[in-house]
């Protein structure tokens, strides 16, 4: 985590809203985004797992990012999107409420995470980035997708 926070070089963050929180993921980690919402529920799965879906023949686990981050469960709306990331040889989808834009900046400008950002669990973030308008929380995808209960 610490080392990651000390990354350098250019940074492109794909930003999105989870509830009212603006978060971003390093665009290099994102495989694709899609709006396919048809998924199969998996009974007995952890609560933050929405289900699994078929992404061109691969099984993708869909995670409710809101719930995982300690917010209210996300609702499926018109603007909901699934961000597919690749983590440890596995495709995982993150359900977010709304995609905004891509912010280009530098890793050096990412500041350490305040202990508590809008009620989110701090350990899931690599830091925060101040943009002209807003404050973007940079998501630590691997930490979010770690399979411990959270």
């Amino acid at each position: 985590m610490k080392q990651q926070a000390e990354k350098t070089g250019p940074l492109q963050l794909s930003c999105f809203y989870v509830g009212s929180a603006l978060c971003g993921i390093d665009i290099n980690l994102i495989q694709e985004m899609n709006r396919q919402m048809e998924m199969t529920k998996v009974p007995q799965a952890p609560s933050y797992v929405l289900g699994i879906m078929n992404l061109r023949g691969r099984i993708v686990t869909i995670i409710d990012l809101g719930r995982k981050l300690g917010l209210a469960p996300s609702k499926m709306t018109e603007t909901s999107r699934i961000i597919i990331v690749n983590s440890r040889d596995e495709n995982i989808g993150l359900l977010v409420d709304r995609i905004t834009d891509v912010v280009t900046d530098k890793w050096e400008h990412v500041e350490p995470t305040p202990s508590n950002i809008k009620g989110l669990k701090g350990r899931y973030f690599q830091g925060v980035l101040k943009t002209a308008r807003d404050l973007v929380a940079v998501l630590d995808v691997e930490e979010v997708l770690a399979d411990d209960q959270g």
Partner: protein
Amino acid sequence: MMMDDETLQMYVEEATEHLGDIENDLLAIEQSGADIDVELVNKVFRAAHSIKGGAGFLGLIKIKDLGHKIENVLDMVRNRELVPDPEVVNIVLLAFDKLRDMIVNVAQSEDAYIDDHIAALTAATSANLKGEEKASVDRRVEIKDGRGRVVFEVAEFDLLQNRKGGKNLYLLEFDLIHDVQRKDKTIFDILKCMDSTGVVLDLKVDFEAVGTLEDDGFSNRIPLFVLFGSIIEDDIMPALLDLGSEFILPLKFEPAPAPEADFARELLESTPAAPEEDRTDSLVSEIFNGANLAEALGSAGAAATPPAPKAAPAPQPEPKPEPRPVPEEDRRNDAKAPKSAIAQPDTLRVHVSLLEDLMNLAGELVLSRNQLMQAISSAALHQIEVAGQRIDLVTSELQETIMLTRMQTVGNIFNKFPRVVRDLARNLGKEIDLQLEGNDVELDKTIIEGLGDPLTHLVRNSADHGIEPPDERVLAGKPAMGTIVLKAYHEAGQVIIEIVDDGRGLNTDKIVEKALSRGLISPDQAKSMSDKEKANLIFLPGLSTAEQVTDVSGRGVGMDVVKSNLDQLGGQVDIETARGKGTTIRIKLPLTLAIIPSLLVSVGQERYAIPQVNVDELLRIPVDQITERIEMVGDAEVLLLRGELIPMLYLSNVLGLDGSACTASSMVGELLRGGKNAGQLQEAGCTMADVNLVVVSAGQFRYGLVVDQLHDSVEIVVKPLGRHFKECQGYAGATIMGDGHVALILDVAGLGRLGDLSLTGVRERGALAAKEAETVKTQDKLSLFVFRNTPEEYCAVPLDLVARVELIDAREIEEVGGRRVIKYRGGTLPVFSLDQATTVQHLDLTGELIVIVFLMAGHEIGLLAKPPVDAIETEVIVDTFTLKQPGISGSAVIGENTTLIVDIYELIQAVQPEWFAVRGSIEVADDAGEVGVPHLLLVEDSDFFRNQVRKFIEDDGYTVDTAEDGLVAWSMLDAEPQKYDLVVTDIEMPNMDGFTLAQTIRQDKRFSLTPIIALTSLAGDEDVARGKAVGIDDYQVKLDKERLLQTIYEWLKRYAS
């Protein structure tokens, strides 16, 4: 010099193919010893030969050299000049290993270090030769072409060997352009042709002869020189080889040896004899020491133009076996790196028929696409649909067929083990017989590949640590030859691979000791472990069983690596061991990535797949038969299937699906429990549906899974679930259905566990059900609840006494007022352990504990114990003498374990004496109130219970006579009508049961007032009613001592008055 990639690739493939079976062939050769199977030797010889030939052609000098040396040895074996004893075969095997490594890493083969192999092989050949021949092994002869250029340098020995066979020697000059390419041949064709008529001694492509463009002599030829020995005379040669006679140069060797050879010989002869001998010795010792090996051997090998006497090779005075172990060392050192290269070939063999299927499917796909394009362009909706369906069909078939190409037999990995085991056995001085079973079991390619290393490790372990040396085995009364069985088979939708040895087994104490010293487990944990758990400790990372690692196997790789490798494949590994008897390691591999036939079922909107291997049968129970086919046993529903009782599980309940109020589960429940009938339910707004059941089995589980609907059976492609589902027990994976939906694949065993069909539960329920279903009253069997005090101390209490069993964590135990208690169902439950009242081992109060709850004198009390627990019904002989002590009524052998039968009354009396104080005074009052001691008749068929009950009644101050069944009891009563004041009787007995006895007693006026107390394990309301009807005064649950004594007391008082 490198040829183009394609040719090289071809060569590598062909060479690998040649090498494929060599190991086993060589092992066979070794086994037959002096009595050689010429055909087999020839086969190996040809393999070495082809490899050598190709290598020469491709300019792979080192491979060629090594191949050539191997060939020499094999040739001598073939000619019966050399006995293929284990020594020789070993050298050849090692050389082949090296050869294989070099071929796999063909690009680096020129850098490979082969000198010690060459030396060992040379030693093997020369060791068995006579003096003159011996010398010839190392002597080099130069072969020149027509223009006097030196083309080859060969060992004189080779030429001599050749000549011995009566062969003529030729130097052939092929032209790769005109003789090979233009004639549409391959170099392999030519070599094959020559092989059939003679022996290719050496060959090489002469690029220098090509010249450069500036040269006048630019020949437009790429000459390939072949040194060829054949019995064919030189006049036939051109026709045979399709080669101009000017390119065939017959060589006269022996009558007029090449001057160079003479020179070499002269040089040799001029070397003094004595220093030569010294030289040999020092050389040998150098080799042995491994010091300057390369240098020493290198100079010895370059003996053709020996510049100094130092390099002159010397005939060895006698065979020296010393140098032989050298390559073994080498092999071990470099064994690791190339191994992995072999384990993962980039090519895959696929059956041609499968390929043809794929071709057909691809063709069909193209056709369908054309159809679709056409339909789209003409906007014909119906045609588009048709084409779409077709494409759908073809693609899924295509997908499946492609998946099939990935299946490989485990034989691919199994077959390398005879060699591994042989080598190990040799090195360790053991005799080991390796048996392979289930070679043709197929697994996915990725699994096969990943399995190689862990399996090798496990087999090596078995051979190294498991099997004892022959003398030790004989001492232990086992055959000197140890056996390792390696087998693969399908079970419950998985592939199981077992490695079974009959060796010494694991020293679990040592493992535990080690784990303790490394701090991997706590002493408390160690105490509570079963043998199996202890054995499985070796899979813990950081637990190197270094003490057991011999110098031979010092690999430094722990079993944890094996386990993590297998984990990656989704496999499970389990170890069972018995000291002195052997070890069984069982690897369960899932069928991930495999295609499996499955049954589709659905609950609510979701579909699920059940692997067909787990499906026994499908049942549909019509609404009106539900009450007949499904029974209640305890609170569980059980299906009656052809006389068998099968527990039922509702998929919707197990998975926690929120179903509507009218699910099958609630419907059946209402019908069976609620006493409602179908009509009432229908009025309540429920739609009545037939119950659909899949009878499934997996391992020891067998149950009926209730689903909403049964669908088709389809072949599905198993896809693994993501890591977030690793806690979910119920699934084996997921699959994508034809419509693109994802369906979960159910794991039948996992669901069984989820549904709390613990194995004991199943058995217990089965036993109970069987008991109820059985109307025959054979009650000689004893139902026991078996638990452990410590892992080694098996204990049991009569099952009927057990009120409940709870699993708790040791931390829940509180010490309050000097007593141990736990919070339990809103109250406080006193708990105690066996060691508080009896002399048993101290119970370790950590981790998971079992609380066995007893109802005693109106109070609940819990006995602490260790899992696992089991409920058994068994015919046991209780030994009430050997291990008798306060709190222990005796012992019995259950299964294979001596089990203490716990006397729960004495125990609780010892622990909670105050509970019993009240009754003590009753006894006094009783004695005072009666003139004589009351005389009781106890009727009970089970020896165990009879003795138990009798004992505590007697302890209470009564006189007790006993009878085994109703008939005996009646005859006793009839004989002495005045004697007995009260009858205590069991209900279920042979010959005459309790009801009949009570009836008989009541019908006799003499006994109209005698109280009858019935003892039973099943005090159902029905029974009580029936008992009352026949005159039984009171019912007591068997062995509830306090209640029984109280009741006896009360009835005696009433009787007396």
